[in-house]
Each structure stands twice: as C-alpha cells, then as structure tokens.
C-alpha cells in the first residue's frame, strides 16, 4: 500500500502540469491516476461497470431459462445467500477485526426464527395478506439473530484473536446441536420445521408473478417465474439493500470506531472510542445479516433442518471474506462468487458436459471440486494475502481548501515546504 502510494505521488508530480484538471479517458480508465475518487462516490467508469453488472444480473435468469439451465439458478441463490452471510461476517472480521468461526449459528437462528415466526404471522394477516408476511419475517429473524449476537458478545468481550475464534466456533456447534436436540419441542429436532401439516406462506407476489408474467419472444422463447427465478431476484434485492446499509455504517462514526479498534485497540480507547460498544454493535449488526440470510434460506427451501449449519460452512463463509478481501465489499462479492460458484460451476460443467454419473469423468471431476478449491485457496494465501480486492483507505474531499491532499502532487510540494518532513527516520 505504502509503496503504491508513493509511486503515484511521484508520477503525479512529474506529470503535474500535463495531468492536472484534464485527465484523459485512458487515465481515468486505468486506475484514475489523475482524479482520485473519494469514498462514497463512484467514478463514471465504475458507475457504468456497476450498471452493466446489474443488467447482466437482471437478464441472467432469462438467458439461463432460455438455455434450459434452470437448476443453475438454485446455485446462484445459494451464492447470494453466502454473500449475504459474508457481508455480515465482514462487519465482524473486516471492519472490527474480530475472528468469528460461528457464522452458521446466526444463519441457523435466522432460519429457525423465520419458520417459527412465519406461520402465526401469516395466520394473523389472513389469506389475502399472508404473502406480505415475508418482509416482516425477514426483519424479525434478523432482529432475533441480532439479539443472539448481542448475547454472544457479552461473554466474549474480553477475548480476541484465537480465543475469540475458539469461543465462536464452539457457539456455532452449540447452536446446531441444541437445534438437533429439539429443546422444549421448539425446533422439531432432525425433522426440522415447518412441522407436517403447517404450510409456509408464499413470498410476496410470487403467485401472481408465476401466473401472469410470461415473456414471449417468437414461439420458442418463453419465460416463467419459477421458484428459483423468484428467489434469485429476491436475494439480489436483499443483497443490494444489505450492501447499501453496510456501506453506510462503515462510512460513519461507528465504522471509524471499528476501524480504529481493528488497527489498535489501546490507542482507540485512549482516543475515546468505547470499545465495548463498538464490539457489541459489530456482533449485533453482523448477526442481523446472518439472520436475514437464514430467513431467506428457509423460505427458499421451504423448510429447514439442522444439517446445513455445519462448521465447514462457517469456514466457507470465513474463506469468502478472507480470500475476497477483508473489509472490502467488492472483495466479498467476488470472493463469494469464486468460493461458492467455483465448485458449483465445476459440478455443473462436469455433470452436463463431461457425462455426469458417479463412475465416469464428470462425476470424478465434480467430486474433486473441493480439492481444487482448496488448491486455489492455498495459492491465493501464498500470493495475495490481503485478498483478491483488498480494502481501500477512505478518501475524503476536503472542505477547508477544496483540495485533495496527498495524491495529486500537493503532498510532494508540502514535503518540500515543511522542513519537519525532511530527513524523517523510517
């Protein structure tokens, strides 16, 4: 990071006159050397990229259905759910700098809370309105998970690093095993929820969409909103909301207190950051998204049972954050697509194009997908420890002088002017 910055400074000052103010299209495209971007604002190029990505994401289901690859959409939903989980975990690990191996605990709590909340709520809302129970259930499950996150934060407040990891790991297992054992007949043990006879309410507009929206192009192309298509768009929507909210929280006083805590806890408290409060908020807000993801998962599947909430899956979420880039939302998105998408893609490719089945090549390649993923992770951690898209420092447009300190050559001039910057050690 340091080296990169310095080199930008030098280049900027050398080409000072040429570059300043103008900045050709090429320069803007390749890293925006001329015009540094401030945090919270997207450059036109980035905006266009995001727009393009959105269009692709919106049209993808239509294309896939046209190609007859409907099952692949279910994988995309799963990727989206894990990205949502990773976004929550990113608050705890990336922003606040605490290790958490128990992501599945909140996922499970959210999923079960959704199952438990949905049926009475749907009954309460009546037949016509029951489809709108889902948004309330989603938020409710998030809040329940957030409360569990708060409870977890109480005993672990004084722990850090490995010890925190061990406790959260244990917590994840405790939640799963507790659910399996059906305490007070709430979770229905291994059979899961909803119990036989209970029916989950439809998510909003699903019935209407399924019956009414059919896109016809000529005779051979038509588009129906199946369950997978519906949840694809729903998860996409929840993800977008989550990204906006998490970004806002990161770019705030609370986000700064997390960053300060992550960088140096002693210095942070000495500067007046209430570390207990910041840690609690990190756990609560991180758990909220875990719970929300759980609720989506439960509704998407139509039922939940304890099996998916294993330690291995917690580690996968952790890997998404670490490999994608801790504290970096684009990193988490890309990490999620790679870690979750890679094995699914390998399996899909092997099954469909290498001949499927247990015995032949397709099945063997599909079985090797986790091995390949492991190899990829080892290479990543050896070559690029900070993640695929590392966290960026937050740059602010200055109010005082309307100047951008640091990257446009002004810093170099300042260094010449201020004698105190000369000959500094280090």
């Amino acid at each position, binding site marked *: *990071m*340091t080296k990169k*910055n*310095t080199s930008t400074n030098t280049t900027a000052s050398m080409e000072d006159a040429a570059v300043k103010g103008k900045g050709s299209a090429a320069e803007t495209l390749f890293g925006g050397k001329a015009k*540094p971007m401030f945090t919270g604002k997207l450059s036109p190029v980035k905006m266009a990229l995001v727009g393009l990505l959105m269009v692709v994401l919106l049209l993808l289901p239509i294309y896939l259905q046209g190609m007859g690859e409907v099952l692949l959409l279910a994988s995309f939903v799963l990727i989206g759910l894990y990205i949502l989980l990773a976004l929550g975990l990113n608050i705890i690990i990336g922003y606040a700098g605490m290790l958490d191996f128990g992501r599945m605990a909140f996922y499970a709590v959210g999923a079960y809370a959704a199952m438990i909340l949905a049926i009475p709520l749907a009954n309460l809302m009546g037949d016509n309105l029951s489809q709108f129970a889902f948004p309330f259930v989603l938020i409710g499950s998030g809040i329940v998970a957030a409360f569990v996150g708060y409870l977890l934060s109480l005993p672990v407040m004084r722990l850090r690093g490995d010890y925190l990891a061990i406790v959260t790991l244990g917590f994840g297992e405790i939640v799963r095993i507790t659910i399996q054992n059906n305490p007070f007949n709430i979770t229905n043990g291994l059979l899961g929820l909803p119990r036989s006879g209970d029916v989950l309410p439809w998510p909003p507009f699903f019935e209407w969409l399924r019956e009414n929206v059919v896109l016809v192009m000529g005779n051979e192309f038509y588009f129906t909103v199946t369950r997978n298509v519906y949840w694809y768009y729903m998860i996409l929507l929840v993800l977008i909301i989550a990204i906006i*909210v998490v970004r*806002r*929280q990161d*770019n*705030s*006083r*609370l*986000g*700064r*207190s997390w*960053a*300060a805590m992550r*960088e*140096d806890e*002693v*210095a*942070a*408290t*000495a*500067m*007046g*950051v*209430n*570390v207990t409060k910041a840690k609690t*908020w990190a756990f609560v*807000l991180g758990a909220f998204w875990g719970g929300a993801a759980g609720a989506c998962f439960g509704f998407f599947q139509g039922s939940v049972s304890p099996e998916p909430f294993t330690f291995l899956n917690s580690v996968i979420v952790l890997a998404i954050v670490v490999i994608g880039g801790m504290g970096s939302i684009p990193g988490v998105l890309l990490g999620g697509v790679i870690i979750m998408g890679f094995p699914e893609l390998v399996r899909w490719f092997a099954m469909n194009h290498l001949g499927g089945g247990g015995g032949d090549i397709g099945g063997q390649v599909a079985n090797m997908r986790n091995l390949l993923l492991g190899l990829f992770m080892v290479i990543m951690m050896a070559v690029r420890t900070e993640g695929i898209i590392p*966290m960026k*420092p*937050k*740059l*602010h447009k*200055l*109010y*005082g*002088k309307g*100047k*951008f*300190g*640091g*990257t446009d050559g*002004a*810093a170099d*001039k*300042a*260094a010449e002017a*201020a*004698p*105190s*910057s*000369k*000959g*500094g*050690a*280090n």
Partner: protein
Amino acid sequence: MAKTETQGYLMQAIDATIQFGGLRAVDSVNMNITAGTIVALIGPNGAGKTTFFNLLTGIYTPTEGEILFEGRSVSGKKSHVIADWGISRTFQNIRLFKNMTALENVMVGRHVRTSSGPFAATFRTPSFKREEKQIQEDSERWLEFVGLIEHANDLASSLPYGAQRRLEIARALATEPKLICLDEPAAGMNESESADLDELILRIRDELGITVFLIEHDMKVVMNLAEYIYVLDFGKLIAEGVPAEIQSNPAVIAAYLGEGGAEALVEERRKKKAAERGEEYKPLDTHGAPAGTMAEAVQTSDTAAAAPATAVMDSDGVVMVAADENKGE
C-alpha cells in the same frame, strides 16, 4: 473526592502506586499539575514514566493511592471515559491507525465529542450528515494546526516519522483535551524536527490553553519547554522542581549516571588534567563528602572533552545525559 480538595490543580496524584507482582513500578508518587502549565516527567529507562501515564489514562488501575483529574478519581475508569473527561495522550512507540488516512485518524479523535449511532448512519439522517461534515471540518482544522493538511488523504503509515508524531498529537488534540500527555514526542527526531516540535508544544499551551504533561529523554526539549519537572527513578519520585533546580539536583545526577557516577566523572577529568600538566595524579578523597559538592565540581569543570559517552555538557555547563535512543522500557 470532593472538588474542594483539588486546590486548583488540574491533576493530582496522591500516593499513586502500582504493583506488578513484587515490583512496584510506580511507588507512592505524589504530583500536582496546575492548569495551563507545561510539566515534564523525566527519569532513566524503566523508571516507570510510561507506566504512570498508563495509570493516568486508565490503561492500568493504581493498586494503592489515587489519581485525581479535576477532583474526580481516574481509578477503575475506562480509558474512553477518561478521554471524555479531557485527558488525551500520545504513545512512546507511535500507535497510529496505520491503514487509515491521516484525516481518518484525526476523525477518530472526534469520536468522544460526537454521538451519532448506527441507525442515524443507516438512514443518513440530516443530523448525521451535519455531524459527519462537522467531524471532517474539525479534523481538517487539527491537521492544519500540526501542518499536515496536505497529507490528509495519505495513509498514516506512509508519512515520514516526524509527521507521524505530529499526526498522533493532532489525533490527541481532536478529543479536545484539557490535559495532553505526550510520551517522548521528540524520540528519534533530528534537530530541526525537534525544534518544530518545541514550537508546536508551546502553541498547544499558548494558543489552545491545554495543559501539557510530557515524558522526554531529550533534555534540550525538556529544559526548553518544561516549567516544572518531576523525576522518577525505580518508580519513586526522587526530585521535583523548576528546571534549574533539577539540573543541579544531586539525586537526579546520581540517577542518570549511576551511584557514584558524578565522582567517576570528576575523577576522569582530574586524571586527564593531571596528565596534561605532567603532574602525578592524586585520587581525590570523595568518601563522606556531600554529594552536592560532587555535582558542583562537575558543573565547574571547564570542558566537556573528557566527559564519558553517557554524559554531555551543554553551553551552560550543566551535566546532561544524552537522549537515549533505546525505546524499549
């Protein structure tokens, strides 16, 4: 403790003690700091200076005695509460938030004077936006005060050493302290950097009216700035007074040069002089002589040429101990 007992002092240490196992790192220290002064805390390595700062800022809790700030006891209070009361500090081994920009570092310092929470941040309420803007504007002013505004968007770790020290001071100032504790601010600085620092510290006191409490090994900085000096050795307060008193205090000289250090110094000089004059060297009978005499003898010697490496003479003829580069304590 009632406010009336403070007798107008901003900070008071009353028999402040901290014991780590068998070691009394700070041992019954009594100290009074008047508002608006620059006070220095000096002493050899391992004397307990930084530990005393840690007591004052709530990182440790005194095992005995008390430290009062504006009449309130800091014992058992969390660091962030003490920061809220108005004690801010810098660290001996710079503890900036390395992966944050200079501006963001200072903005963290504003934390204690602002209040918006996660919900305001999520919904970007008008009051949140106003407060964020205010935080940034204030932080920019602090950066400007220490002369780092041009580096606002540079990573803290990419700044030159002297700038990092000043950034730490800006961050501490951003908490709007009444008392700022600087832990070896001049350590590792060259002449011109430490001269700039002197000026900055004076400005903190004169322009902002903030009381300055500093630990420093650079005696030039201490003697230039401090109006009152406390000297710690092995956790105990061995001397206090205005700089002139401290310079001639035999206990202080002994602490820095070791027991009999002053005698050794004089002995050395006499030997050399004797050699120059071609006379036979006669050892001085120092045993039983009051230590004050020794210190005087040191002061009245004419040249620093023969001084051992650990001690130097400044232009006033006062024995000084060279700034210790060793940062570990």
